[in-house]
Every structure is written in C-alpha cells, then in structure tokens.
C-alpha cells in the first residue's frame, strides 16, 4: 500500500478505502478505515477549537466545525506538533466565502494564533534596571542604543477592534459595548507564564516593529511617528519596561539563583 494513496483517502471522505489494508482481527477494513478517517478530522477540528476559542464563540460551534473541517481537509498538519497547527487558518477564514459577512473574524483569529506563539516563545532575562539607569547617564548615546525585545513580543494592527472583541470573550468587557469596526492595535507578549493582550496606539506598533527589525532607538522613534499619529515614546517604553519586555543582552544574564 502506498502512503500517498492512504493520505489522499484520509482527506477525502468520499474516497473508497485504500487497497492493501488488513485488519489484525479480521474486522471489516473499510469500516475501520472510516472510523480512523473520522477521528483524524475530528481531533484536528478539536485542536483548532482549542487554539481559536474566541473565533469559535464568534461564529458558533456548528459554523466553526464546518469551517475547521474544510481547513483540515485543505491544509492537513505539516508538523507533528499540534500546538502550532493552524498558522494559516486565519487566511483561510478570510477567504472562506460563507464567513465574508463578518470581516473581523480573520484578525481575531490572527490575534489568537499570535497568543499561542507568544506562549511557546523562548524565555529571556529582563534588562536590569541598572542597565537602563546607566543608559540614561549617557544621553548622547541614547539615539544609537539597541534595545532587545522579549522573544514573545508580537504586534498586530487591525482595521477592527480585535483587542476589545478578544477581551469581551474573556469576560473582561461587555460585548455590547464593543464597536467591531473601530481600528485597534494589539501588543501580545508573555509576562511570566501568562500571555497578555494590550491595546496600543498604531505608532507604538511601528516603534516595536522597527525595534524588532533591528533599528536603534533613535531610528525606531523616528519611524514610529506619522503625519496622522504622534508617538509618545515615554508611554510605550514605560509599558515595555513595566512588563519586563526589554531583554538583557544575550549571554550576560545567568540563570536565576
């Protein structure tokens, strides 16, 4: 039996049982294969439901099952690590005709997936306060200062109220008070063991993205400001420092005692 034929039959519910299968106890092979094919799809749909709980609540369990099942058959896992399954599920949702009436679904799904990446991102020792104080004593060097961000940090800019929608589904705010069509930007990062989602201004997204791309502090601040939105570096740096999202220089921090 060839693995390609087996895999193809696994993804197509109407395909006949691939030839060459045998059962160890003489039970009906076609029936056993059908059970396996069903479990394969159901377990992956459930994995997506675990990873995208807010999306599931937004569209309802029945619609979600249809959506996820279509995705599983189109994009089966490429890796045995189930945690990362669904990286392009948000794109699939965006292109799913029946979901087009609710345009913010894909960005909410993107936020949920970014949270998973943040959860599994590497640890980093925070930049010690003394290092910041030392930097402040040499202000002439600040524009060329290179800040390392915590590896879990991600930013997401959306034309929809993704942070408020997500928060409403955590019971943090009332869903009735959310206008989904108000643009919002999210900062997603892990603090300790919990992944935090915070609304930030669009200029802060550009600032953090610039730092992630390796820009020095002076350049990043310059890139953050735009004609339509001023940038408040103190607020953004305060947030990053307060959440311990500036990382220490690699290799200089020992493990905690």
């Amino acid at each position, binding site marked *: 039996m060839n693995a390609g034929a087996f895999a193809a039959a696994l993804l197509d519910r109407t395909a006949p049982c691939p030839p060459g299968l045998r059962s160890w106890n003489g039970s009906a092979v076609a029936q056993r294969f059908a059970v396996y094919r069903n479990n394969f799809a159901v377990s992956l749909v459930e994995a997506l439901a675990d990873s995208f709980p807010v999306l599931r609540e937004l569209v309802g369990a029945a619609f979600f099952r249809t959506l996820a099942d279509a995705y599983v058959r189109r994009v089966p896992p490429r890796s045995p690590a189930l945690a990362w399954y669904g990286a392009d599920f948000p794109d699939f949702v965006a292109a799913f005709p029946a979901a087009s009436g609710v345009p913010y679904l894909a960005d909410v799904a993107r936020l949920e997936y970014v949270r998973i990446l943040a959860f599994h991102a590497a640890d980093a020792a925070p930049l010690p306060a003394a290092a910041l104080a030392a930097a402040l004593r040499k202000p002439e060097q600040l524009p060329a200062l290179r800040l390392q961000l915590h590896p879990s940090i991600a930013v997401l800019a959306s034309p929809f109220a993704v942070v408020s929608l997500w928060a409403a589904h955590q019971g943090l705010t009332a869903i009735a008070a959310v206008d989904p069509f108000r643009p919002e930007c999210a900062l997603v990062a892990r603090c300790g*063991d919990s992944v935090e989602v915070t609304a930030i201004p669009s200029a802060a997204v550009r600032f953090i993205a610039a730092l992630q791309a390796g820009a020095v502090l002076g350049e990043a601040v310059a890139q953050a400001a735009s004609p339509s939105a001023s940038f408040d570096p103190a607020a953004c740096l305060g947030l990053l420092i307060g959440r311990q999202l500036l990382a220490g220089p690699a290799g200089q921090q020992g493990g905690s005692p």
Partner: protein
Amino acid sequence: MSQKTTNRPASAAALALALGAALTVAASPVLAADAAKEKCYGVAMKGKNDCKAGAGTSCAGSSMRDHQGNAWAYVPAGTCEKTASPTSPTGFGQLKEFKEKKA
C-alpha cells in the same frame, strides 16, 4: 552648514526625557499589580488546575485528584502558603510541587 539636520532620528535630549519618564511610568504600582499572582501546588480541586498552552498541550483541568501535589493553580501572591492543603506535608499549599501525604 554641511551638517545634516533633516531626517534626523529623535534627538538625544528628547530620548533622555522619554526614557526618564518611562522609568517613572514603569515603577508605578498599577503595572506591577497584574503580576501579583503565584503558582500554588496542592490547592486545586480535581480537574480545576490552571495551565493552558493551546491545542495538544493543554494540561489545564487535567489533575486527577483533589489537592494533587504536582498540579498548581494561580492564587494571589502571598496566599499560597496560607491555603490549607490536606495532602501537603506542611498542611498548606506549596510554591514547588511536593509528594502528597495521605490526606
């Protein structure tokens, strides 16, 4: 004259002000408050332990017994070792996992 002042990144003085203010913002207790939780072993009821890591990795709600010594729940910082745990050798929740004694 030949000195370029256009397109110049943020000035050193402006950055010093911003970073100084940022350190003040960061030191305020509001931001520290949401971190004031600790992992506490031995206090969660069966199936009520915390932990969530996405599909395939979830161990939340997986504890098999009440007060399981290697299952934890988030509690407000400082309260763990004051929370009674009948399976704990100290009689209270612990910050590290422990071997249960017979409750």
